């Protein structure tokens, strides 16, 4: 099979000399070319799972199996931009400097298109401190997209954005996923966002996978008032409320 498999993943932290179990044996399959959403209350282990899958942390036991080569990019909760680099330099942070003239031109074109895509074409020489929180986050998203990853890990990336920019960015995620065929693991608190973006929605509870939902891939924009999605939203809400 292709994609990424998470097998019996366990992770705990020590807080005040007490062991805190965050993940209690997660089994999950991330299909290639799909958007998988991790949904759940705060502290249920979504971000920890994302970091383990991305290799930023080590698990206590279990394993993450990559069935094929992946080029991974992260979009974190905070923009995490280098304060000494301007927007364009930050977006180019993950790129290797091109060897020949053709390489450099291709890189320039890529940077330009990605910066335009996130609506920062007029700010490419601005420093992070000169940008609003939303603009900083858009720069971080552009940095991940410019890297041309096959697997994107996104940790509540649109939380700091306004409604319209968030909608635009969501459309962009869907477009990138369709055009590039990237796999995306996306953490969010918003059920609506999960229903708009996800092919698979994984509801997490007490460090375990509580339930999984599938939404068929469609070409058009999803209508949240669609009966099928409304029913799914109610079911997810019920799952999450059960966790209290």
């Amino acid at each position, binding site marked *: 099979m292709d994609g990424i498999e998470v097998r019996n993943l366990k992770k705990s932290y020590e807080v005040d000399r007490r062991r805190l179990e965050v993940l209690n044996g997660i089994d999950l399959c991330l299909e290639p070319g799909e958007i998988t959403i991790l949904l759940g209350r705060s502290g249920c282990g979504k971000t920890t799972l994302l970091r383990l899958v991305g290799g930023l942390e080590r698990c206590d036991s279990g394993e993450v199996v990559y069935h094929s080569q992946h080029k991974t990019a992260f979009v974190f909760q905070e923009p*995490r931009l*280098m304060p*000494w680099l*301007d927007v364009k330099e930050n977006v180019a942070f993950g790129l290797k400097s091109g060897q020949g003239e053709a390489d450099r031109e291709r890189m320039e074109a890529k940077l330009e298109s990605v910066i335009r895509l996130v609506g920062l074409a007029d700010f490419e020489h601005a*420093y992070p401190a000169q940008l609003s929180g939303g603009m900083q986050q858009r720069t971080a998203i552009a940095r991940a997209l410019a890297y041309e990853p096959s697997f994107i890990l996104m940790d509540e990336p649109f939380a700091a954005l306004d409604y319209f920019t968030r909608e635009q960015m969501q459309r962009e995620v869907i477009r990138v996923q369709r055009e590039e065929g990237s796999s995306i693991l996306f953490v969010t608190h918003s059920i609506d966002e999960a229903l708009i973006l996800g092919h698979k929605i994984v509801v997490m509870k007490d460090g375990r996978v509580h339930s999984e939902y599938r939404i068929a891939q469609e070409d058009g924009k999803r209508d949240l008032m669609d009966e099928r999605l409304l029913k799914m939203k109610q079911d997810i809400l019920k799952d999450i409320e059960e966790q209290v």
Partner: protein
Amino acid sequence: MGMEFDRMNKGEKRNDKQFGKRIKAGRHFKIGVGLVILILLWFVVCETGIFNAYVLPSPQKVLKTLWKMFLNGELFRDIWISLQRVLKGFFIAFVLAFALGAVSSLLPGVREYYEWLVQFLRNVPPLSMIPLLILWCGIGETTKIVIIILASFFPMYLNIVKGFLSCDEKLIEVAVSFDYSRWKCFQKVILPHAIPDILVGMRTGLGYSWRAIIGAEMVAASSGIGHLILFAQQMSRTDKVIAGILIIGVVGYATDKIFALAIRKFLKGAGENGWN
């Protein structure tokens, strides 16, 4: 939108410049007033004979001595020799501090082998090392430069290490997520992040180098501002001692200002882009 952004920035910069000029003029005026008051006080104290002219020579006498030293070239010769010693010691101390700081960042496990020694030596006054240094290095230039190194190394080392070790873990994580090697992460994230601290350390170290020059030139020197002061003291020329102190202060202040200017140029509007 871009033009608007540029226009806004230019307008703000113009206002900032005018405001900055007014602040600067006000500061220069205050410095001038303070200086005049100090010289006047000095003059009055000397004229009223509160202190003996041997203990505190008048400002006119010190000025006359300075003028004489200026005319016969003694002043520039001593400044040049001391400046060379300070810069040599400062440069070697910076290279050592940077290298050890970089090791602390790149190989944190190795740091524990030498950190205790650095902390021990930090608390030893460089002047107390003079007898040993004469024994080991003789009375030539080496001892003088080693004293300057000992004085300026520690403030630089502490700032450089602080700069390297205080790098935001979240930024390092970004580099890791893009598969940066440890060396590339150091070059692209840790080093640029540490530059403000490194420059502050260099500026402090430069000041310490000037402060150490008297101690350094106590060791069998026949030239330099430190030697000038010590020789003047032995000849009971208090006016020359004060002239020497004034020269060290002015030259140290000037090099510090030049360095501060270089920092501002290098950081290209640090305040604006969030470096500070």
